[in-house]
């Protein structure tokens, strides 16, 4: 006789329903595709929000003198633009891509912790709502730059800084939960036969990125908490008058901030490593060296933080160490660039829109890498530090690097996600429009920086006028191009030529070979065969 009765039918039915109807679908969903879509839309909204602040910045800098905004408001705009773009646009976009793609790429039915996934996303709109609300507060939004150096963010900070601190904590919790989920999914839920060295590069880069996030997020959380206690609870972590050290804030910030740069670029490497072989119709050259290069970059990213602080007054031995360690990063990064070029070598290449964005990434990210090399040389950095050269450098890395890869990913995978092909002509117009505009926007900033124009200023000397005007024209054109992108996105979602299951002739991977376009709401309820 049996000693216990078990009936789990209700539980099983949960696994096989389709999407719920109405708005509550998006609030309560635990489906990785839904949550990926939510992340991607949030990041697009944040891109337009952060972009609108960039438009204000470029409008004010269009001509010398103060025309449109007060200097304090200008500082609020530079601060909020940086924070929103880094934490609101780029990072959530990559998490959205991870949500959509990682389970499909490893043959898993969903993320390992679906409810946690829902919570990680829904923290973000509240975090950014809180952050955005500071603009309308009496003291105005934080105006101390996205690096929030003490004592600007402690002793001299506006009251709204507390809201900023709370928002950063929420973003941090969201990032940590997202990372834990990605790690648990990749480690535990790969389909039989999907060994680590068979995983697509995008999965590898996200696994390493998730580890970076896990390692550095407590540092950010600690930094903002110490800001809070310095402001309200009488501590002096960063207050020299109380025995603290404001320079220590810079160390702690950049110990988080430099790996953060790689958090925003490693998944981009994974995306490019998926797109280039597809349109070159050749397997990726040097897969294992790509994996090791990614891991090397991640490890090195913890050892170079003080290259952001060469002018702070550190010993020459320290400058030398951080300089050599920084230059060392060019080796694994070079491995990647050369592998992409070698993959294309003698390939049967075609230039559809995703490939154009990927090629744009390689060329312009390399320009950003080269200016990074220049900034990494301590004696040279003394001249460039806090100039527009730095602004040009990190925008080449983050806009033509990270953002370009995200847009490339959209064009590459959107036929798979929606079952509709985007309009190729519009996609190419979007690429060329953006690429010309982005170079008009950022390339002159190199010259401005070399000529000595400081960053984060609303007014400037007359000799910088022409390049600033050119840069602003590029900025407006680039901003408009992304509104055009919004039109392409909506048009593609609403309809278009039907995409085939494989989508691209040279596409490989489980999402293209084993799933239809669009994929079912619950994919891989049966284990896919892995070659």
């Amino acid at each position, binding site marked *: 006789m049996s000693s216990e009765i078990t009936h789990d039918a209700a539980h099983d039915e949960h696994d096989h329903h389709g999407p719920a109807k109405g708005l509550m679908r998006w609030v309560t969903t635990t489906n990785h595709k839904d949550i990926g879509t939510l992340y991607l839309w949030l990041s697009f909204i944040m891109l337009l929000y952060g972009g609108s602040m960039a438009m204000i910045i470029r409008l004010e800098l269009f001509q010398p003198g103060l025309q449109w905004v007060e200097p304090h408001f200008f500082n609020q705009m530079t601060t909020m633009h940086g924070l929103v773009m880094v934490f609101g646009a780029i990072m959530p976009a990559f998490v959205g891509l991870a949500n959509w793609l990682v389970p499909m790429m490893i043959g898993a039915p969903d993320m390992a912790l679906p409810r946690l996934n829902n919570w990680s996303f829904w923290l973000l709109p509240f975090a950014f709502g809180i952050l955005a609300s500071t603009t309308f507060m009496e003291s105005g939004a934080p105006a101390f730059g996205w690096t929030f150096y003490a004592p600007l963010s402690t002793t001299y900070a506006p009251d709204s800084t507390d809201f900023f601190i709370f928002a950063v904590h929420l973003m941090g919790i969201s990032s940590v939960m997202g990372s834990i989920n990605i790690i648990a999914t990749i480690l535990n839920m790969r389909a039989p036969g999907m060994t680590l060295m068979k995983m697509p590069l995008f999965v590898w880069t996200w696994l390493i990125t998730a580890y970076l996030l896990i390692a550095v997020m407590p*540092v950010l959380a600690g930094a903002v908490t110490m800001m809070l206690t310095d402001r309200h609870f009488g501590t002096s972590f960063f207050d020299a008058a109380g025995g603290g050290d404001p320079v220590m804030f810079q160390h702690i910030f950049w110990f988080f901030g430099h790996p953060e740069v790689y958090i925003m670029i490693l998944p981009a490497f994974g995306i490019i490593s998926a797109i280039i072989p597809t349109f070159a119709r050749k397997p990726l050259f040097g897969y294992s060296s790509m994996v090791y290069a990614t891991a090397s970059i991640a490890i090195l990213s913890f050892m170079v933080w003080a290259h952001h602080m060469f002018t702070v007054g550190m010993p020459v031995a320290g400058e030398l160490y951080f300089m050599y360690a920084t230059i060392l990063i060019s080796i694994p990064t070079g491995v990647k660039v050369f592998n992409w070029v070698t993959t294309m070598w003698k390939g049967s290449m075609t230039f559809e829109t995703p490939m154009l964005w990927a090629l744009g990434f390689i060329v312009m990210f390399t320009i950003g890498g080269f200016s990074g090399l220049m900034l990494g040389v301590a004696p040279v950095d003394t001249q460039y530090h806090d100039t527009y050269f730095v602004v040009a450098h990190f925008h080449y890395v983050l806009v033509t690097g990270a953002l370009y890869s995200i847009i490339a990913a959209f064009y590459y995978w959107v036929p798979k996600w929606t079952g509709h092909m985007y309009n190729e002509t519009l996609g190419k117009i979007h690429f060329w429009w953006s690429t010309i505009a982005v170079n008009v926007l950022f390339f002159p900033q190199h010259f401005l920086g070399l000529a000595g124009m400081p960053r984060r200023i609303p007014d400037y000397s007359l000799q910088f006028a022409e390049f600033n005007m050119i840069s602003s024209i590029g900025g407006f054109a680039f901003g408009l191009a992304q509104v055009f992108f919004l039109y392409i996105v909506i048009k593609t979602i609403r309809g278009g030529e039907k995409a085939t299951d494989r989508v691209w002739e040279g596409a490989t991977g489980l999402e293209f070979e084993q799933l239809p376009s669009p994929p079912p709401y619950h994919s891989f309820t049966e284990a896919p065969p892995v070659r």
Partner: protein
Amino acid sequence: MVSIDKVNTSDSYRFVLSPNCSISWHELVLLYIFTCVVALAIGIFFTIQGMWLVLPFSGLEMLALGACLYLTSRKVYRKEVITLDQRRIRIEKGVQQVSQSWEFETPWIRLIDEQTGARDRQRKLAIGSHGNYVEVGAFLDNSEKERLAFQLKDCIIRV
């Protein structure tokens, strides 16, 4: 996504069912320890520099990571063992050790194989008798359940 391990001794059969798991418990623990060492080393480094508020966050985060990995492991390291001989059929479920078990008399046994869920897409296997049934292999996909059902029926007929 399962290992159906059928052991056929002289007059009994044993099926070991477990969900797909792409990393062993041992490897997972090693990886977790490594992550803790890195995260806590960073926390301790900043504590030595006087910035002690990093360490509690590192600790909290490692607890969260450990809890989440443990929870996912509970799902993927569970096992179900079905032992079948002429007289009895025994079903055991648990993670690392038996936490639940059931016994039925083999001559009375019934294997229920039914379609459930939307458009009958989900398959449910249950073993029992006299109105008491225990679901087996809930974590298997449909093709694996079909294979398991076939093998179970075959063994029941043989014994």
